[in-house]
């Protein structure tokens, strides 16, 4: 049973989020500005905080900064500000995730789950990388058992998809062009002008990412290739 604090000056949004979280079996606490949130954190045991940025009295950014001085609970910022700069700022001051309004409820729930899993299991379940296990963030590939899981949830991939993902995860941070991936996986020369690899990559993204359009693990480097982020 996790306690989740939802903080937004818009009551309807708070209530909507509450409904979704209740459906998932979480316990929800509500706050309507930054000060209330900090107060609620002091008085209750909170496992995760969802917080708006633009709020009266104390805005989300300042509140996050204050909270980070004493707490390391996961904070998901939920904001109408969708600029790159806003996201970078939010993540830099200590937020763990950044979701823009209007949001997809399923995506929000998925992110909440992901954050909670990481927060609670971190340190407890520590599947170290060894000869056959590769991981980045919540993405884990066990090459011996040929299984892939994201935040503990197992994902089903086709053999080609699995091979592509394995190649990228093995070489975290390195960018592979389509031709390179093709040559590695199919073991033959790339014919060029082919989009097979790109299609597979998209399918992988759809399976392992919460929001395929804003991938967390498998990223597209436009005009250059693909890579798996080192997290």
């Amino acid at each position, binding site marked *: 049973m996790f306690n989740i604090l939802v903080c937004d000056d818009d009551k309807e949004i708070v209530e909507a989020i509450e409904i979704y979280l209740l459906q998932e079996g979480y316990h929800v606490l509500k706050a309507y500005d930054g000060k209330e949130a900090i107060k609620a954190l002091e008085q209750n045991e909170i496992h995760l905080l969802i917080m708006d940025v633009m709020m009266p009295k104390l805005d989300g950014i300042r509140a996050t900064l204050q909270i980070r001085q004493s707490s390391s609970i996961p904070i998901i910022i939920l904001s109408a500000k969708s600029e790159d700069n806003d996201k970078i700022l939010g993540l830099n001051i200590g937020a763990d995730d950044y979701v823009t309004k*209007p949001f997809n409820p399923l995506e929000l729930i998925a992110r909440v789950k992901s954050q909670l899993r990481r927060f609670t299991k971190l340190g407890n379940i520590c599947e170290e990388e060894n000869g056959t296990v590769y991981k980045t963030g919540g993405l884990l590939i066990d090459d011996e058992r040929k299984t892939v899981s994201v935040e503990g949830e197992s994902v089903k991939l086709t053999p080609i998809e699995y091979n592509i993902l394995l190649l990228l995860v093995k070489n975290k941070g390195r960018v592979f062009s389509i031709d390179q991936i093709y040559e590695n996986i199919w073991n033959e020369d790339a014919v060029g002008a082919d989009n097979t690899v*790109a299609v597979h990559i998209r399918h992988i993204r759809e399976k392992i990412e919460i929001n395929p359009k804003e991938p967390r693990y498998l990223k597209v480097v436009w005009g250059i290739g693909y890579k798996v982020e080192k997290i």
Partner: protein
Amino acid sequence: MIAFLIQQVLVITTVALAFYLSNIILSIDDIKEAMSGKSYLESQYFKDQLINKIYSANQFMDYQKDFEVAGEYNGNKEVTISQFLNDNSEMSQFSETQIYSLQDLVDWSQGQIEMISLYEALTDYLYGTNNIEATSKPATVMDADADEIDSDESLTADYKTFSDNMKSLGIAVTSDMLQIEVPKENYLTTKTSLIDYCLENDDFSEIEKISMEMQEALNNIAEEYTFYNQYAAYFKSVDSSNFKIYIQDYKGDILFNNCVGDNTNYEEYFNNNISCGIIYNATTNEFSFTNFIIDDVYSNVDLFKIPDQVNYIYAVGIDSRYLHSDEFSVANYNYDHNRDSIIVLVVSMLIILICFIYLVAVSGRSDKDEEIHLNGFDKIKTEIGAGIGIVIGAGILGFFPINSLNNRLSTQVLVIGVMGLESMLFTLEFLSLTKRIKAGQLWKNSILYMIIKWSRIFFRYRKVTTKIVILYSAFLIITLGLLDIVFSDGSFFMLLVWFVFVGVVGIILLREAVARQRIMNGIEKITSGDLDNKIDVTDLKGSNQLLAQAINNIGEGLHNAVDASMRNERLKTDLITNVSHDIKTPLTSIINYVDLIKRENIEDEKIKGYVDILDKKSQRLKNLTEDLVEASKISSGNIKLEMTKINFVELINQTEGEFSEKFGAKGLQVIKTIPEDSVSINADGRRIWRVVENLYNNIAKYAMENSRVYIDLKADKDQVVFSVKNISEHPLNINADELTERFIRGDVSRSTEGSGLGLSIAKNLTNLQKGTFEIYLDGDLFRVTITFPRVV
């Protein structure tokens, strides 16, 4: 141009023809008759000629009476003065009776008649000049002779004395009579002299009348004799004329005949040879005509009356064989030939006129445009052009009379040539005039207009102009005044003053020029975009300082305006961003609660449909707000680009991977022509992806289902050209430019999803990354071409 040449050739021909025609003078009526096809003999012109000849013949017959005896001129013929007087009803006894020799009178009439006073005549007569000695002459006479400047009074006294002397001799001569001018005494009659006659009759009363009659008669004789000789040469010579005349009295005596020999029967001769004979029988008072149409004009009996004759035959006519060269043969020739020439003349004149009108109409125009084209001459000031025209025009008129003075061919050729040239120049000049009028330049391009314009400018800016004029006049007066003193007095000091003055004026002018140049430089900087530039006004003076300050103000105003517009653009972007935030919050609630409704188990299909619509539209609203912010940022250039080397081939393949399902769902078949090797450009990866994504999205949304999509990438040394082509599902009834305007979409009804900003964003992003973005529409074919410089 052709019309011009035709006209010139015709002008020259016409001038030549006019010369030719000027040899005979036909009246307009004659030309009309000639044109109507009447022959020469039928024409009024011929009638007039013939009647004139008959008059002349009758006149000649009168003269014959005076000058001839038995048909021949006879100088010994005895004649009286009375025959030659205009009015012989009240003539003097002397003139009526005294007989002269005809030859004497003719001789005298040819010279000047010597007149002396009766006094002198009587003195000579009585005392003689040779045989009577001067001593026997009265002293008074001697005096009168010796002293010509004797007063009238003394002369009158002399006459009185002489008259008294005469009276004593029994001769009645008054002193008044003595003054009368009389012919000198050697104009003798056959028997006596005038003085003798008077002395004999002892009557000097008629002396004046006689003298007058004598003079009148001699004048008439001079005239008649001239005509007589002319007529005689014409009428009496059988071989000289085509005019034939034959007069016979009732006795059969031939009074007049210039036909042929006397033996020939005149009737036969006329019938055979004379095509227009008129025979008048005075006895019966009847006319008959040979080979000729009876005409009233010829039936004028008065024409054929011969004085002192009653019964006679008068036959007259023209020998139409024209054996001799005279006025009739010439007239006949001219009449026929001139008729043709006149037709040519009239026709060519008409063509000249048509050419001229045509030239006037087309002058200055060309096939290419509607403008009036002026050449160099047309740009000469109107007055100068008009002057040249007048000189040429005067030349044309001035050359005409030369022809009448000189009929030589060489002169005529010269005149024709000059006339042709003149007419050519005049035509050009006239066409120039019409061009000026057509172009509205007649007045605007005149010296007078220029003067008026300058005067107006002078008056309008009189504040400055009068100042300059006064200053300049003052400068002239002072410098010239000083120089005048220097030259008259040789004053060295004044020369020094002059140098200083001129030097000061020069320095002032230099300073002005420098100030002007500084202001010019300032203006140049502002116009080239340096709006912050200020002209230093501290050491400028007067109007230059004001001018520089005004320019500084303008620059500042421009600077502020540009600043303001930039700030406005930024504010606009900020506003749109803020508004979009404010929209997003309620939108979030809408989306979430719609989703919550969807999660309820709704049985009612109708409500399910409604919720679906709400879902879709709220999603669309979400896209719209996001695109709106992005579009506004891009169009205001308010984004930061991270340029790197991008492989366009990779990008296309990646993009296709992203869109394979979407395209597949619509049955779109991609036909791709791209190079195998990498083709690199410099761009911001995410932004160039956005461009390509928008284009693909556009295809996915608007391409016709189950059609082909062409993706081409071509690269040469310098450029990378990427193009997408597809067939639009909806008719594209807008132009290409409009498609990249914000909020324009291919389907005007906007029934499909999409914000209408995709192409606008793509275009602006492309431009920001130094690429070009072009849309081409042809019917339902939609093509976008993106060009980037290639990077190796």
